[in-house]
């Protein structure tokens, strides 16, 4: 008699069910797992005989077996210890011959083993990375890149895994330095850029890798590295903004949970959503991580800029195309402008490109402007400005060209005003009478710039009222080369005034002579200030912007500096307070220069450290003295200040002036008019209605009545006609009564 088969025995060649059972109860299925493991080994040996064979002939494929073993490896770590090594060996030896799906399965199984913590990240990355660099298959490269990035991300998610990061960074660095001619270095750039974008790597070592890439010999690697410096930080900011965009509406979710069918899954989802919202909230409140831009993290920018320039731009043997040369130049000029470096040969190199016929000349002009700063000798810049003026700005040249030239000169002179001679300036300023609007605006820009920074170079009638008054009264002093304005804090004089006022009040209240305040008293005041560190005046509310720092060590430091006050550590303090060094010619104080007193560096600034309470008071005082900020010159200064020092000057900045005068076509005008209105035209009611619908709110009874199908209302209307007079009277009475009561559910009982 035939025995009845159990359900278990019927399923014969089913790895999935075996996997399920193994995971449920590892010890009892050890034998079966072992058998499958042997099967895997047999098939592996067969594969190794000829790695390029496809394995899809039999009913059990190696692919499935690898998947099975990888998923169950954590149940029998001892028995399958060899498995990961097998995969690593097969992959690294035969990745080019293997069938694509088998190969991908091996990669993902390795990653799975890593996620189960059977191998460590370093092993995984050290396996995947050489394959990424050497393989010929595009799909495999994409897969490996994704896996590498995600593994690095997941191992840095809780806390920064410094050791792993350091090993990988070393690997990338070695890849770049080992073979400078090959394109392999591009992978180092790509990985670093991706990790930089996700804010996983934010340290100087990552920047060092890119720096090395910039100095390689391969054009692709060079441009990749340079592009990172020019755009990597912006990319990072955008990515950070994007990630915070998708917000969850908890209210609707809760509402839906109340209405829809209640399942475990939905409850879990709600819980997860709440957790994410909470996490986001916490993240929003957390202090912003201080991420330095890549350009600021560079070690030895002077040397870097010099080597970049001499190796890729000036070197006649370098085979870079004009486009890549331009972006290298852009980077060099960014570095020069940002760190105030001195690369004198850069300016003479740029000289020969400053002709209107040069390809992408506006970029060259922008590069020149960007590379200019206050420490560039004026006599180096003078011939350049002269050449721009000669080549671009003339009656004979096209209007756009002249506008671009004038604009470029303005941008250069805004950074180094001393580079201009009076005859040339007076000549250029004359172009404000030009017929073309672009040229006009550019010339006016130059004029208003020099009214502020060097009015004496202008003709008398061009100087304008403010500048003339300032010149006569001697309020502006000539800025000389290399001179640095003394550091100050805007509005510190206001604070000083306020402090003396306060002191006088206090002394009057104490019955002492109002004027003479002794030094001891000063110090007493100071001590008092430090005691109530947070807020001096009770009425000013706490903005909460200050994070409480564990202040033990700091207190000690500060009291030290107080003790040493007599020994004169003033310089150190000045440095502390100098964080907002204003540019020359930018201080809006000129309007106030009727009083010809040479402004001394405030005593307050050199002798004390401002407490947060002081700073708050300072801000309040500044706001109250806002009259000054309405002046056009200070507005302009504010605009300049708003433009961040990290922002680049591009060709568009130079070309902007020329675009002003340009007549646009009808299509462009239409597009412009349309661009600020989004979507179709709608009345306010329609918009409100749409909004209401989108929010899922219900309609009013009135609306329902209006929308009701006509045929449905017919019957009632007909009935109304047939009523008797008494009925009509009844309803009319009822209506009056209802309206008196305030509706059906009236409030008067």
């Amino acid at each position, binding site marked *: 008699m*035939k*025995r009845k*088969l159990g359900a*278990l*025995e019927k*399923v*014969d*060649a*089913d*790895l999935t069910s*075996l996997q399920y*059972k193994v995971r449920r109860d590892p010890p*009892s*299925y050890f*034998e*079966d797992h*072992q*058998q*499958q493991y*042997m*099967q895997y080994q*047999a*098939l592996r*040996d*067969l594969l*190794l*005989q000829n790695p390029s064979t496809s394995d899809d*002939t*039999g*009913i*059990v494929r190696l692919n499935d077996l690898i998947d099975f073993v990888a998923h169950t490896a954590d149940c029998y770590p001892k028995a399958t210890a060899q498995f990961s090594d097998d995969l690593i*060996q097969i992959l690294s030896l035969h990745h080019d011959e293997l069938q694509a799906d088998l190969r991908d399965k091996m990669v993902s199984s390795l990653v799975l083993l890593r996620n189960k913590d059977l191998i460590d990240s370093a092993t995984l990355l050290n396996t995947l990375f050489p394959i990424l660099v050497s393989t010929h298959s595009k799909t495999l490269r994409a897969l490996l890149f994704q896996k590498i990035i995600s593994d690095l991300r997941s191992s840095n998610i809780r806390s920064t895994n410094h050791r792993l990061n350091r090993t990988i960074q070393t690997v990338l660095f070695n890849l770049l330095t080992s073979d400078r001619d090959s394109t392999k270095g591009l992978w180092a750039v790509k990985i670093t850029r991706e990790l930089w974008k996700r804010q996983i790597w934010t340290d100087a070592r990552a920047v060092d890798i890119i720096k090395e890439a910039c100095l390689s010999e391969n054009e692709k690697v060079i441009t990749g590295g340079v592009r990172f410096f020019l755009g990597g930080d912006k990319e990072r900011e955008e990515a950070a903004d994007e990630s915070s965009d998708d917000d969850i509406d908890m209210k609707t979710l809760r509402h839906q949970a109340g209405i829809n069918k209640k399942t475990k899954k939905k409850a879990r989802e709600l819980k997860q959503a709440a957790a994410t919202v909470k996490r986001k909230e916490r993240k929003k409140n957390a202090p912003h991580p201080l991420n330095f831009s890549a350009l600021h993290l560079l070690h030895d920018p002077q040397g870097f800029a010099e080597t970049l320039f001499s190796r890729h731009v000036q070197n006649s043997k370098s085979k870079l195309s004009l486009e890549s040369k331009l972006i290298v130049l852009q980077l060099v000029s960014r570095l020069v402008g940002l760190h105030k470096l001195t690369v004198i040969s850069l300016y003479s190199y740029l000289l020969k490109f400053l002709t209107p016929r040069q390809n992408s000349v506006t970029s060259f002009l922008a590069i020149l402007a960007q590379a200019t700063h206050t420490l560039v000798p004026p006599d180096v810049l003078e011939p350049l400005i002269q050449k721009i003026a000669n080549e671009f700005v003339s009656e004979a040249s096209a209007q756009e060209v002249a506008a671009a030239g004038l604009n470029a000169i303005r941008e250069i002179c805004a950074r180094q005003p001393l580079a201009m001679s009076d005859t040339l300036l007076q000549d250029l300023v004359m172009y404000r009478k030009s017929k073309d609007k672009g040229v006009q605006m550019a010339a006016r820009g130059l004029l208003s710039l020099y009214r502020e920074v060097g009015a004496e170079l202008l003709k008398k009638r061009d100087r304008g009222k403010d500048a003339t008054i300032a010149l006569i009264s001697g309020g502006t002093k000539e800025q000389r080369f290399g001179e640095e304005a003394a550091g100050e804090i805007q509005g510190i004089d206001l604070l000083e005034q306020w402090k003396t006022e306060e002191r006088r009040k206090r002394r009057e209240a104490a019955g002492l002579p109002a004027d003479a305040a002794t030094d001891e008293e000063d110090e007493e005041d100071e001590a008092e200030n430090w005691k109530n560190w947070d807020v001096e005046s009770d009425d000013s509310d706490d903005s909460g912007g200050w994070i409480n720092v564990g202040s033990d060590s700091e207190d000690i430091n500060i009291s030290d500096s107080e003790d040493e006050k007599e020994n004169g550590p003033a310089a150190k303090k000045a440095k502390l307070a100098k964080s907002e060094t204003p540019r020359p010619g930018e201080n809006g104080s000129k309007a106030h220069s009727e009083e010809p007193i040479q402004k001394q560096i405030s005593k307050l600034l050199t002798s004390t450290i401002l407490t947060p309470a002081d700073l708050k008071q300072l801000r309040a005082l500044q706001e109250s003295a806002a009259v000054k900020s309405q002046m056009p010159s200070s507005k302009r200064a504010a605009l300049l200040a708003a433009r961040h020092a990290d922002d680049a000057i591009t060709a568009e900045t130079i070309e902007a002036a020329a675009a002003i005068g340009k007549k646009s076509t009808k299509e462009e005008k239409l597009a412009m008019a349309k661009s600020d209105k989004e979507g179709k035209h709608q009345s306010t009611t329609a918009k409100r209605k749409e909004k209401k619908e989108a929010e899922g709110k219900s309609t009013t009874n009135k609306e329902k009545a209006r*929308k009701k*199908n*006509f045929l449905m209302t017919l019957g009632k209307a007909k009935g109304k006609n047939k009523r008797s007079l008494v009925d009509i009277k009844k309803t009319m009475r009822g209506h009056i009564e209802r309206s008196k009561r305030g509706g059906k559910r009236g409030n008067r009982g």
Partner: protein
Amino acid sequence: MGSSAKKKKEKKKDFQKVKLKVGKTKPKAANSTDTSFKAKAIALKQQSLSTNAPTVEAQCAHQISLLNHKSDAQRRDSLAYLTTVISTHPPGSPLPQPASVIIPAIQRLVLDGSNSVRQQMLKLVQSLPKTDIASHTDSLLLHTRAGLTHLSTDIRTFALDMLEWLLSVAGDEVVSCAGGWAKTLKCFLSLLGWQTQVGDKWSAIRTYGRGASDAKVQAKQMNTLTTFLRAGLIQPTEIVAVGAGTSNFPLWQTEHHVLSERSSAFAHLNLYGATRDEEAEMYEDREDRQRVFHELAEGAIAAGIEQSTKGGGELGRAGAHLCKAMKEGMADFHRVDED
């Protein structure tokens, strides 16, 4: 109301029937896809026009190429064709396709899903000349081992047949090729469930995927193991006479200096392959094999035999055979051990 009427009209528009007119081309459906394409070259598919029939060699090559056809029947028929051609060809003349072409093509079929294909494949290899098999033992054994550990019971039993045949044809090569001894032994142990470390469990372990005819299969496995052990452990009876003939008088020990007659005589040096561990190593001497057997399997097999002889019946008989083979094979090993 107005809006609903409009909506209705719009809705209707989507499902409106397009009118067909006589003499006009049929209008295209809204979701029709243009599948026409342009090609730079046109390939004409044509049957060969040669008048004379293809040779046997060509036909064999064609049939070999059909061995990985997706249909079971086609694979089986191709195998059958090859079998008839080989078995009917006159001895002495060369095969229509050399064995070095045929064997690599058919060996994967050990793991084939269809039983008829597997049986036909066994017939085909049996029809091949024995001398050709010897040089392909290692790859055939690899496939057979893969079959022995297969999830499917049918394939496992078939692999036993295959191994049995392989041992009968080239027993010496099977036990002495790389991994042939240790790995196959391990394989048998796991097949029979005679692992050394499982003795401490309370309940008997029933392995997953084993059919009802467990005892029968196990008996068969034990019989095959007996053959395997006999091939590996027992001294070959006829000892090759050391050539001491007087005919080659001045050359005394020529046979030690001529190249070995075995296939891949220097395989044990492992010049090109990956490094081998203990399992994958070649064990060419009987003494080596005895040592490995003693270390790996002897205890487990003895325990297993004891259990199966207690059960009696078919299993008991198989156990007795196995016991006898093991004793014979290991008889002189103990003596060596004692010395």
